[in-house]
């Protein structure tokens, strides 16, 4: 079977054996840091991983991966342990018989979904999540989703997106998931008052903090997307102004704009500075002055700044190296460099969305070495050569790097931990201080 023609074969980067040819330094603008692009082995999770936090966030949703044993094993392994008696995710494992003919695969999928929904009447939203195998055999999950939606008489909404590793990298799975939820959002009328939509999943505790701040500012109405329950989908329309809470939401942003929403450009709410700039951008868009923002956020800001400054003592001057993983690397690097005085050796990101990160990039030290995409072997060479004080990397690399004397921070923890907003600014810094402290303790 050859599925070549089902994909857009953009060859923006040409991969050859020649090292010189595959390393390109691309300037991103005037006085902006150069971006190193290499192609080789990418040591990152695929978008299926997002299911681990998304199913906690949207509490009446079920995620059914249509994939292989590998996909099932990935989610199980990335989740680390079996936490839930019956989690709201599962894999429909494609087998030989399904590969024999596509009509069978569709029947099989219907059978699996029916059985699942009978077992779980609490499910209101079912995501059919595509994987590499389902993409390659061209199993049409969007047709399956509308067929199943009709079959369940709309008592369960069935949506689909792809978390496949051939199309998505780690957090892009959340982007694909949220983008699939945009078309079903109710339409806000053209004359509805301006409303703010915060886009990107945040821990509930962070969401509540932001909601309180916006309320104190008199800013509203405010909705959060994704919602905690799929039955409470926020409306969207030409008067919706959305602000991204996460840097990896390119497709979701595009889909919202197709529904008429406009983006409020802002840095991301990481660190004191980022949080203030983020809230201010939202406030400004609603005609609320910066002075008001500063007075409303004063105590939280000062508390956060004091907590962060204590950690600055531990982190200042320390050199940090980021392997690409979550796309949170650039905002976090900005925070660590500006508020904690850390030095950025290399900041890798799997994908650089220049527009959404415009302000972030402008805030980075000009000499920062950015890299986009990955050739893990050569990046490891650079990492060893530069001998940083701390390395941010995935779980597959962490212990081998520690064994070679480097200190590491698992990047996946940055995704699972509440790190946004004032109250979490010091927690975020702490995540980097702790491994350094630990190494010191054990060396003593």
């Amino acid at each position, binding site marked *: 079977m050859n599925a070549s023609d089902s*994909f857009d074969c953009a060859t923006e980067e040409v991969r050859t054996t020649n090292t010189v040819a595959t390393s390109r330094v691309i300037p991103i603008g005037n006085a902006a840091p150069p971006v190193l692009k290499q192609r080789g*082995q990418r040591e*990152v999770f695929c978008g299926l991983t997002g299911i681990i936090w998304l199913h906690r966030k949207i509490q009446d949703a079920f995620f059914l991966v249509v994939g292989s044993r*590998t996909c099932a094993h990935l989610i199980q392994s990335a989740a*680390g342990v079996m936490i839930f008696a019956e989690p709201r995710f599962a894999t429909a494992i494609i087998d030989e018989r399904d590969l024999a003919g596509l009509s069978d695969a569709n029947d099989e999928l219907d059978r699996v979904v029916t059985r699942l929904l009978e077992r779980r009447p609490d499910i209101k939203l079912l995501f059919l999540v595509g994987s*590499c195998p389902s993409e390659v055999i061209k199993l049409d999950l969007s047709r399956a989703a509308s067929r199943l939606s009709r079959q369940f008489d709309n008592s369960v909404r069935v949506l689909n997106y792809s978390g496949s590793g051939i199309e998505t990298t780690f957090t892009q799975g959340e982007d694909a998931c949220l983008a699939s939820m945009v078309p079903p959002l109710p339409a806000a009328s053209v004359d509805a008052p301006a409303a703010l939509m915060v886009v990107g999943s945040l821990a509930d*505790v962070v969401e509540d903090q932001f909601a309180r701040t916006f309320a104190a500012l008199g800013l509203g109405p405010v909705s959060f997307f994704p919602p905690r329950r799929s039955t409470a989908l926020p409306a969207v329309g030409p008067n919706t102004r959305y602000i991204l809470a996460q840097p990896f939401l390119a497709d979701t942003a595009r889909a919202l704009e197709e529904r008429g929403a406009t983006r409020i450009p802002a840095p991301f709410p990481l660190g004191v500075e980022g949080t203030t700039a983020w809230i201010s951008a939202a406030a400004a868009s609603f005609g609320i002055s910066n002075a008001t923002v500063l007075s409303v956020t004063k105590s939280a800001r000062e508390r956060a700044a004091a907590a962060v400054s204590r950690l600055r003592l531990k982190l200042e001057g320390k050199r940090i190296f980021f392997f690409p993983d979550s796309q949170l690397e650039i905002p976090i690097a900005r925070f660590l460099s500006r508020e904690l005085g850390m030095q950025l050796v290399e900041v890798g990101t799997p994908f650089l969305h220049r527009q959404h990160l415009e302000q972030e990039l402008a805030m980075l030290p000009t000499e920062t070495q950015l890299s986009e995409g990955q050739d893990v072997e050569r990046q490891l060479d650079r990492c060893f050569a530069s001998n940083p004080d701390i390395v941010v990397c995935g779980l597959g690399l962490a212990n*081998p790097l*520690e064994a070679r004397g480097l200190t590491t921070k698992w990047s996946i923890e940055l995704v699972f931990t509440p790190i946004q907003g004032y109250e979490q600014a010091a927690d975020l810094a702490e995540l980097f201080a702790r491994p350094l402290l630990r190494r010191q303790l054990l060396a003593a």
Partner: protein
Amino acid sequence: MQLTVWTYEGPPHVGAMRVATAMKDVHYVLHAPQGDTYADLLFTMIERRSARPPVTYTTFQARDLGSDTAELFKMAAREAYERFQPKAMLVGASCTAELIQDDPGGLALALNLPIPVVPLELPSYQKKENWGAAETFYQIVRKLAKPRAVPKEATAKPSCNILGPSALGFRHRDDVREITGLLERLGVTVNVVAPLGASPDDIARLSEADFNVVLYPEIGMQAASWLTKNFSQPSTKTIPLGMRATREFVAEVAALAKIDAAEFLNTAEADTARAPWYAKSVDSTYLTGKRVFVFGDATHAIAAARVAHEEMGFKVVGIGTYSREFAREIREASKRYDVEALITDDYLDVEAKVQELQPELVLGTQMERHIAKRLGIPCAVISAPVHVQDYPARYSPQMGFEGANVLFDTWVHPLMMGLEEHLLGMFRGDFEFHGESGPSHLGHATPAPLPSSEVAMAHAAAVEAEIAIATAQLVPPESFEVTAVPPPVKPSGPATWDAVAERELAKIPFFVRGKARRNTERYAAEHSIDLITLETLYDAKAHFAR
């Protein structure tokens, strides 16, 4: 399509990785998308290996499909050879690459690398991890093993290979050390251990051994059969798990090595074999007839059932495996205990079975540990799939004489201590010291019933905790689980006591009196008895006695 919540085994290429990672100077080039690199963490996080698995993934993307995925593979293989300089290369495809049919084997051969290349055909949509490991090891042996060059000297000591141990195995490292020591004390030289720690050169000289010791048939049997056929090396059949099996294993080895092991069995190991004496000691009386459910890979499940039955005096009430390849063996074993074998890789089936059987101890995998925890049944882990906890820092084999000691300790540990259980029997239902409070030597007591608002809060807190999933790799998983909170007991109006019964109650020592009163009243309530008589009191006592 099979609906799967949790899987016992990964895909077959993960089995191949277990072999490649176990070996030295081998590199595996895997045609696979980027997400498949998750498999590295199994080795670096769960097993805490200090080096990355020797695996290069091509990590092709959608845009590569059809245009140059084959080219990508060739490039990855060439670069991997140049960078890692392995002495042999394994090449193959994961599930996705299998569908695009690039033929990694053919592509790699076309590169004319100056090292042996072993193409692996591992059908991902039919087979699983253990099969993949066995097939990979077999292909490596077939490709690299050479007939013996010089005949063995007549005076040389008997020698054997140890086959089957791999990376990410359940205590393989410690088992190898234990069995190697045992064989050497017996006077048998270990020629090669493979795949764990073997290089391609070691595989080449497998034929120099007189026979093979197959410790893990799931992984080593296929290669061992090939060696029997081609190099006339017999292999052992007994798995030295448990005291008796270890003794039989010694006898089997002695026969193959043509040595006399009687002396060894009588004396040499007597000191280290503490488990049989512990099992006989009076404290162990309470183990008698404990109902156990056994589930795991076939080798460990069969052996554990035997140890449970013959060496611990337990009653095996159920046995099963997720290894369909070994269904016959498990069925055979199940006849010995007069139970029906459960052959399934569906975790929900296993859970239903445990629920139905209500055993007093579960011997299973990490999956059963979770099932048992949820049902409040003690559990000990006996088999892969593994968790970070299955790699203890200390030496902790499962096989051989020391292994038998370890089995005794680990299986008894989750249970109540002997005397403790008697006291519980005496005070059953006492408010501080009751059957639900868990063994006193284990920290986690089941929480007492909470008022419903606190239940809600506890639940909310647990859900919060779940967000920090990533850290679970290093933290005992218990801290992330929602502990089942028993529903509050509904109080019902107590029955009245008649004077005789009341006087009888007064004769019961004060420290059990409250308990006796509550049990009797509960019995009365459950049997709709309004007036408690002497008769009721003793009926209740009989009812609550086991």
